């Protein structure tokens, strides 16, 4: 079976829709903004990659808005775009489409509001939708309910690599009788103090206030990353299914692998990341010469960056183009790996490598694409992602003409 992406949707700090996302990526636009409502409470984090001007009622039926947190709104809007883009006729067979949307820490903003009501005013002031809105599976559930999708559904919570792992899992779902899967990751960590508080203890967030330097991976000034919010969702199916319904194939999901590198902020030493990348490439049937661009994890912490560079040198002794467009908008937890997957699909499609914003020069002997986008012949892209706690995932995507 060859798994292909035939639909794509994003909600990002560039706004809603993949067109807006790609336009910002190619420009290397800075999308980090102050988060004053959180900073005013004495939090050390000052910048965030927020989805600008997002009014859920513009995109989602009211009855779904009141029962969901922002992380589900983003998932629902990205899923709608992916479904539309795919052209799948959901109503023709509700059991033919499933949902697997990854979550980072659930519905924090909704949860904080209801918990404040509980402790501040009493149990009778807690809305009943708290029972479902905070939950990790809420996004998958509401995407399923609002679109009437009755295929295999699930949720993965593997921090940032979530969508990469969900794509790996979807292969099984396709084999087991759900011919199309909506797969993605979504998070909204900036909406409330509680959401951000859950992240502070990890010690990986940048305290910088200058959008130009706060998140500058692979540089000497690297001081952590800026948190962001957003979602990306892809519709995947077997190539034969896509062909039969004359769908446009946007990318081939050629290989996935994940490893666990041991407890720690990030896989210490990068061995686990290296192993995941090697295995994903093996499964995709590509060697180092077959990979044309790497979407790096680019945590923005000196040790984690050095580990990744070492892994890249081992994987690609002759060098490879590397980029980290998320330096422009931050890391959106479960949305981070997902937005990188979307960036890789768009990059293959446009045959352009978007630049790494805020990194003026390629450091550490890396062929990092900086300053301006680079047109290139792109057959395959490798996406790397690490999660807090030691998870590592790698995904190989290919241009449909080069499989």
């Amino acid at each position, binding site marked *: 079976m060859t798994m292909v992406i035939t639909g794509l949707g994003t909600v990002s700090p560039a706004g809603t829709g993949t067109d807006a996302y790609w336009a910002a990526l190619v420009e290397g636009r800075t999308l980090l903004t102050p988060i004053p409502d959180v900073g005013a409470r004495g939090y050390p984090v000052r910048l965030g990659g927020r989805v600008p001007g997002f009014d859920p009622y513009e995109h989602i*039926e*009211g*009855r*779904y808005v*009141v*029962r969901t947190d922002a992380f589900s709104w983003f998932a629902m809007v990205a899923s709608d775009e992916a479904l539309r883009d795919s052209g799948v006729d959901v109503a023709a067979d509700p059991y033919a489409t499933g949902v697997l949307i990854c979550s980072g820490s659930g519905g924090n903003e909704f949860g904080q509001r209801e918990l404040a009501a509980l402790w501040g005013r009493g149990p009778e002031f807690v809305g009943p939708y708290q*029972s479902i809105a905070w939950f990790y599976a809420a996004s998958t559930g509401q995407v399923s309910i609002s679109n009437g999708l009755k295929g295999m559904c699930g949720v993965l919570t593997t921090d940032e690599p979530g969508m990469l792992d969900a794509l790996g899992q979807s292969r099984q779902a396709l084999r087991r009788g759900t011919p199309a899967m909506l797969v993605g990751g979504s998070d909204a960590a900036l909406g409330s103090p509680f959401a951000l508080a859950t992240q502070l203890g990890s010690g990986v967030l940048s305290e910088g206030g200058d959008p130009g330097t706060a998140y500058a991976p692979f540089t000497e000034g690297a001081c952590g990353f800026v948190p962001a919010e957003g979602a990306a969702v892809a519709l995947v199916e077997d190539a034969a299914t896509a062909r039969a319904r004359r769908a446009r194939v946007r990318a081939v999901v050629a290989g996935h692998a994940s490893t666990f590198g041991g407890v720690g902020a990030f896989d210490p030493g990068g061995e686990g990341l290296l192993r995941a990348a090697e295995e994903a490439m093996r499964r995709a049937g590509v060697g180092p010469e077959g990979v044309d661009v790497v979407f790096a994890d680019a945590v923005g912490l000196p040790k984690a960056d050095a580990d990744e560079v070492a892994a890249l040198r081992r994987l690609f002794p002759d060098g490879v183009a590397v980029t980290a467009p998320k330096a422009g908008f931050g890391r959106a937890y479960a949305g981070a790996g997902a937005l990188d997957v979307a960036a890789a699909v768009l990059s293959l499609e446009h045959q352009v490598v978007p630049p790494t914003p805020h990194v003026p020069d390629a450091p550490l002997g890396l062929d990092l694409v900086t300053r301006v986008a680079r047109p290139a012949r792109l057959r395959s892209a490798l996406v790397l992602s690490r999660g807090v706690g030691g998870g590592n995932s790698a995904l190989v995507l290919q241009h449909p003409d080069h499989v």
Partner: protein
Amino acid sequence: MAESRITIEEQVELISACAGIRTDVETASSQTFDELGVDSLGVLGIVAEIERRTGLKLGADAEQAPSPAALMALVNGDVPAHMEGA
């Protein structure tokens, strides 16, 4: 008891605030919660808000009310229910 009564206009407002569904007096008067698209958790939220506004304890009967009209009848004492002043 006047302040413990609710009107259909209030229900229209509560259906919007608690369940996110816009409706009007005529529709809310004649349709069931199900037909309006209000799920069981939505009804729960509406009942809780009515309890706060009126000071009444409506109990499980109210949560099972099939329609805004039935719920209104229950709250306004047109149907016997387990009501206690709060």
